[in-house]
């Protein structure tokens, strides 16, 4: 039983008695049981040293860092202990051979679109007028099979997402002006939440990739040159509708968030610290939500669904079983 730890305090994180100690500026000391740490998210200003990194490496714990604006800045990714040369060769081959790459890229997009449609249909049956969008997105999906370049697959993906985002004003029972996705900087509550939780999902996926033999920098839908762990971006497409989008809908529709939770920055919005903690806790609970897996007949968490997706990808890459992207089945 391990947990993600989220550190907001300013101070020092160090190794003490073979476990972790967080000493904050205001003098509080918390000892964190190292055996229970799955990964760590740092939002505060923390001093760290190599003795700490040593301990984190020993326990294979990845640490994700964020800046003052809650933007992701990087990960401490301990030395790989799960290396498989054979798998790496396969990962590269699937990138280099265009047909193989296209196949995976399309699968990521269709997986994403299936889950987007699932969300739209869910709200459609609850009285939201989404028929047109459902039809348009289904149409875009059928075009996918004719695409013969990565950029055109990306184009379809972009159009599906654009269409989908346009429906958010209908899905969310709030009067928020949200017509399109604005990233740098996010201009309103919804955009700012999308940025934040997409990035957290991305980090959750990095942690999972680290626990497998997959190499995080080789990707298929996204270009591997984007200076990031782009495989995590590929995988995130499939999970955004379930883990991020539905979460944001329920935050608004269950009145768990409003303007007062945000503070205005020069040209963007940022969650206030107390609200951020509260909402992050909800997000963490969401990842711990469990369901009975249909094929495995075992109880798994949302977080573990990500791991299973990576196993499916491994089986695809070694040529054993074609990747069948995760679809929300409930």
């Amino acid at each position, binding site marked *: *039983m391990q*947990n*993600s*730890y*989220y*550190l*907001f*305090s300013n101070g020092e994180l160090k190794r003490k*008695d*073979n*476990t972790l100690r*967080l000493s904050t500026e205001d003098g509080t000391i*918390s*000892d*964190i*049981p*190292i*055996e*229970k740490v799955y990964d760590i998210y740092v939002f505060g200003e923390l001093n760290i040293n190599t003795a700490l990194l040593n301990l984190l490496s020993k326990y294979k714990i990845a640490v994700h860092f964020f800046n003052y604006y809650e933007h992701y800045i990087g990960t401490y990714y301990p030395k790989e202990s799960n290396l498989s040369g054979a798998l790496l060769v396969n990962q590269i081959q699937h990138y280099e051979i265009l047909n193989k790459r296209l196949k995976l890229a399309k699968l990521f997009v269709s997986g994403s679109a299936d889950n987007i449609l699932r969300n739209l249909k869910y709200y459609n049956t609850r009285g939201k007028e989404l028929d047109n969008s459902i039809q348009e997105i289904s149409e875009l999906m059928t075009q996918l099979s004719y695409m013969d370049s990565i950029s055109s697959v990306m184009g379809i993906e972009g159009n599906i997402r654009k269409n989908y985002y346009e429906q958010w004003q209908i899905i969310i029972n709030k009067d928020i002006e949200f017509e399109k996705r604005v990233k740098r900087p996010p201009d309103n509550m919804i955009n700012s939440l999308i940025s934040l939780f997409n990035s957290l999902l991305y980090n959750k996926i990095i942690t999972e990739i680290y626990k497998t033999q997959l190499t995080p920098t080789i990707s298929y839908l996204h270009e591997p040159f984007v200076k990031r762990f782009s495989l995590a971006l590929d995988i995130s497409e499939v999970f955004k509708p379930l883990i991020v989008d539905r979460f944001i809908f329920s935050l608004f529709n269950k009145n768990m968030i409003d303007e007062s939770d945000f503070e205005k920055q020069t040209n963007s919005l940022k969650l206030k610290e107390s609200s951020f*903690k509260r909402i*992050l*806790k909800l997000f*963490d609970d969401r990842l711990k939500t469990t369901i009975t897996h249909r094929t495995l007949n075992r109880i798994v968490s949302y977080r573990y669904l990500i791991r299973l997706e990576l196993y499916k990808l491994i089986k695809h890459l070694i040529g054993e079983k074609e990747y069948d992207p995760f679809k929300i089945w409930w």
Partner: protein
Amino acid sequence: MYIILVYDINTEQKSNVANRVFKICKKYLVHIQNSVFEGELNESQFINLKNEIKKYLRKDLDSCIVFYSRNEKWLNKEFITEPKDDTSCFL
């Protein structure tokens, strides 16, 4: 399983048992009061913890008791004094 571990280490005889046991417990559980630890553990973690502290505990001098339940929700917890959440993962 959800665990509350309490111990009493005999300190009449000079030894570093208390210190050793304390340090080991801190790796697995949250220290909530003097000689009291709390937290959720896997069975394998629990066995590891027991193995580690058994090496130091002296059968005739020390006492160590573990209360556990399958799940945290089957254990009620009430603060008679000021409530404090030491087991939080949001720090």
